[in-house]
């Protein structure tokens, strides 16, 4: 029996492939795209409610009022926001994987040490909940730069904050927690 010609083999193979669902080339990329979309949706909402831009002022009352007003409007607009709206289970898993990667190898010791030098009251006093503010009396834990290099980049309006073992996503101008990942930090 004659072997099938190369053209015939390719034709049959392409039929088989077209009939099968396409496996994602990079599933992590799809998750990161989903994350950026959720961030983009939040930014669109934020833009509609921010109002006049706060300019540098000697009036602390104005700065305080602007932050409070802005936070209030965001809370109102996101009244039904829940944990997982931005950090879905798949996105949270991906973030945990990226954080674990960042804390491996030669980086491990120094990132851990940086996290352990947090003020002890940070872990005890911050209630990590969606739409809650970060209390002014509690110092911030610095977010190690090695973590930030490994996580998806954020626009300047948002930041990642480490609170104990949580990774929180915050709107820095409104001083609001938008979502969080529990047990993100080993």
């Amino acid at each position, binding site marked *: 029996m004659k072997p099938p010609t190369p053209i015939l083999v390719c034709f049959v193979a392409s039929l088989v492939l077209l009939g099968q669902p396409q496996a994602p080339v990079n599933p992590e990329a799809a998750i990161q795209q989903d994350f950026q979309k959720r961030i983009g949706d939040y930014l669109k909402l934020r833009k509609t409610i921010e109002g006049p831009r706060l300019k540098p*002022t*000697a009036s602390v009352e104005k700065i*305080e009022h602007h932050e409070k007003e802005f936070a209030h409007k965001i809370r109102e607009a996101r009244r039904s926001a829940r944990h997982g709206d931005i950090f879905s289970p798949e996105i949270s898993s991906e973030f945990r994987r990226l954080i674990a990667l960042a804390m491996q190898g030669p*980086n491990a010791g120094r990132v851990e040490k940086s996290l352990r030098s947090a003020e002890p009251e940070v872990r005890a006093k911050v209630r990590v909940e969606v739409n809650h503010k970060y209390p002014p009396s509690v110092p911030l834990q610095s977010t*190690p*730069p090695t973590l*930030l290099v490994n996580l998806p*980049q954020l626009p300047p309006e948002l930041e990642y904050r480490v609170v104990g073992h949580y990774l929180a996503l915050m709107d820095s101008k409104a001083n609001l927690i938008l979502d969080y990942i529990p047990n993100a930090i080993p």
Partner: protein
Amino acid sequence: MRRSVFFLVLASLVLNAADLTLPLKPKSVHFAVIGDSGTGEKGQYEVGEQMAKYREKFPYDFVLMLGDNIYGGESPADFKAKFEDPYKTLLDRGVKFYASLGNHDNPNQRFYKPFNMGEKRYYNFKNGNVEFFALDSSYMDPQQLDWLQERLKASNAAWKICYFHHPLYSDGKFHGPDADLRARLEPIFLKSGVKIVLSVHEHLYERVQPQKGINYFILGNSGQLRIHDIRPSSTMAKAFDKDQCFMLIEVAGDECYFQTITRRGDTADSGVIQ
């Protein structure tokens, strides 16, 4: 009576002049430095008084703030008690304050005009042959690192001074150095010719032995103070953890003079960097 008053005044002027170790060279850049200052307590006010007193002999036009500018709250009353009142004499005389953010500071301090941050969490400015880079070490993201590299590369200043909250080297027991920040920042500083780095976070004063040619200082006791917090090591050149302090710095050509002064007006440290 008048003669005794005259001699008393003359004696006090002589004593004050002798307390200043800085050379006051023509056309030099003069500034003061404070860190971890914003307690609103007696120690901070007394440091402010000494800063005003020393300014009469060493006229400086600006002050660097290394973070933890306001502790405990960010209300108008907090700003008044923890910044506007302690430094009122200086503010009334037109002295500018250039703040960086600490871990006790709300990032919205960048909108407070007297901190001269221009709405930015990190920024730079130049005075004479010195360029200053104020960084936000609580959130050293890739965008800030890129910005810093670009600005340092573009700078032709003879002296590049970086200041930010978390120290890269520290012999303080409470916090210690931030090794991850050091891993990211030190290579940039070395590549760009940064000569002086000022930080705080530890509530004491320390001058670190030069590390790869860079001079590191910690000045975290301009309001706060943690007594007996130093754990001396081979990296420590000088430390002082018994009282609050501020620094005066004079950059004259290729020399940088410094003097660290306590709230009682005594000199805790002084020297010159070339």
